[in-house]
């Protein structure tokens, strides 16, 4: 698949920013809910499960869209290590966007909890009850959540670095609205 021009398609940009917001919300809700015993624990857990499964669905759509439309090429003068870091981190982000919800779902399955989403939607168990699998998945969900957050911070820093320091148009490929049109006349 080749580049798609200078920017991600509007659908890709919409999905990117919608999911960026949802995933950050998930991480905050996750660490917030497990550290409280107040009544807000229950709605937070309920949102966590429902939004998490919504992210799984969106991530699969996003992956399909990405495979169909591709991505703009990175600037030719981007140093090789940065290029590699960009590609690897994007792979990792895709894996986590799909993996984290699946791990959450599987973790609840192995603990024999009913999995009830917003509006009473019930999901089937995807693994049998098992205490060893439960603690494995619990640890995976826990450690990968922190890895995910760290990766997003790096990704965020890199995006800002492109936008503010390198000013190489990479941020613009994903920007919700382009700043290029305004800039062009001044160039």
């Amino acid at each position, binding site marked *: 698949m080749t*580049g798609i021009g*200078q920017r991600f398609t509007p659908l890709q940009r919409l999905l990117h920013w919608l999911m960026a917001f949802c995933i950050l919300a998930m*991480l*905050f809700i996750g*660490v*917030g*809910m*497990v*550290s*409280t*015993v*107040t*009544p*807000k*624990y*229950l709605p937070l*857990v309920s949102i966590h499960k429902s939004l998490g499964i919504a992210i799984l669905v969106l991530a699969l759509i996003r992956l399909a869209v990405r495979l169909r439309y591709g991505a*703009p*090429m*990175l*600037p*030719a*003068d981007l140093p090789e290590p940065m290029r590699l870091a960009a590609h690897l981190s994007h792979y990792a982000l895709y894996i986590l966007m799909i993996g984290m919800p699946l791990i959450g779902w599987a973790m609840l399955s192995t*603990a*024999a*909890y*009913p999995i009830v989403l917003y509006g*009473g939607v*019930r999901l089937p168990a995807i693994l049998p*009850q*098992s*205490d*060893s*699998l*439960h*603690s494995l998945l*619990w640890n995976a969900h826990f450690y990968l959540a922190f890895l995910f*957050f760290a990766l997003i*911070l790096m990704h*965020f*820093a890199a995006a*800002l*670095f492109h936008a*503010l*320091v*390198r*000013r*190489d*148009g*990479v941020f*613009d*490929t994903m920007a919700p609205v382009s700043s290029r049109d305004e*800039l062009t006349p001044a*160039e």
Partner: protein
Amino acid sequence: MPEPRRLPARSAFGSLVIIFVVIAGSAAAFAYTAGWFSPRRLTPDKMVDALAPPTGAALGHRRNHAKGICFTGVFESNGSGSTLSQAQVFARGQYPALGRFNLGTPNPNAPDSTVRVRGLGLQISTPDGQEWRAAMINPPVFPVSTPQAFHELLLAAASKDPNAMKAFAGAHPEIATFGAWDKSAPWTGSYAEDRFNSLNAFIFVDHSGAEHAVRWSLLPAVQAVPISPDDLAKRGPDFLQQEIVDRVGRGPLHWTMVVTVANPGDSTADPSKAWPEDRRTVEVGTLTVKQIEAEADGPCRDINFDPTVLPAGIRVSDDPFPAARSSVYAKSYDLRTAESKDYPRTAKSTKP
């Protein structure tokens, strides 16, 4: 490919500072949300720590109500509950039940005569795929009004300061009702003779969408025979488990489930206060216990009787306990399933 537009990197330093501030700020907000800057926030971990006996938690076991035995049976609904709740469990019929008789102690080896509070965990499954889980105890009220107060009670009870409990009771006079039950209520020599109460208030939603604040209890069919704790001690440290195995071996045991409906204005938020005696009650069905199994390999072992696992037609009220219990039971469950090596299943078992 984005055309490289080399605008002069006007103030790279300024930009880097902005990036640093934004990233550090995000990380700090995350840590704040996780409670890392709030050492006084009451967390499930703290509650679990406070439950642990001085010798440390019993690994692989529930962090409270650790001594118990599994049962299976059926819940037979008589249909009366369907005027209060649309949940299928109240439609006339028989639904499989799974549960656990237990003692309110973090020590799985505590002698029966040393534990005042007895409990019953229950899970009823209905054909529509829904589950109702509950964990009930035998006192008529809970000792305290809030989860925070329960945490303070645990700390006071474990404190070396001889005045800690006095000070606690001074600050939480509601504990007197529980204290009176503790002193005066007769003990029984069998789980089969105990009454188990939800204590927490829940909301039933009926078919018209109307809401009813309720509590429920399981009333034993067997007449209670009082026994002193000393006499119970003489029967042996694990008498209750042996007794329930023998009794169910001779025939199934029954409890009637009675739902108490609050009057408008009754407080649902405080399980330390019983509702007045004259409140309307509805008998909704019968729990029949048919088989007992040891916990180590039993079907209740890896179940979390989380009181917020509710079918559509039952939801939590403004009682702060179910949410707190859910968060703490999950923590207890995470810990004990991770420690299953310390609580081995017996040799024949195949379950991982």
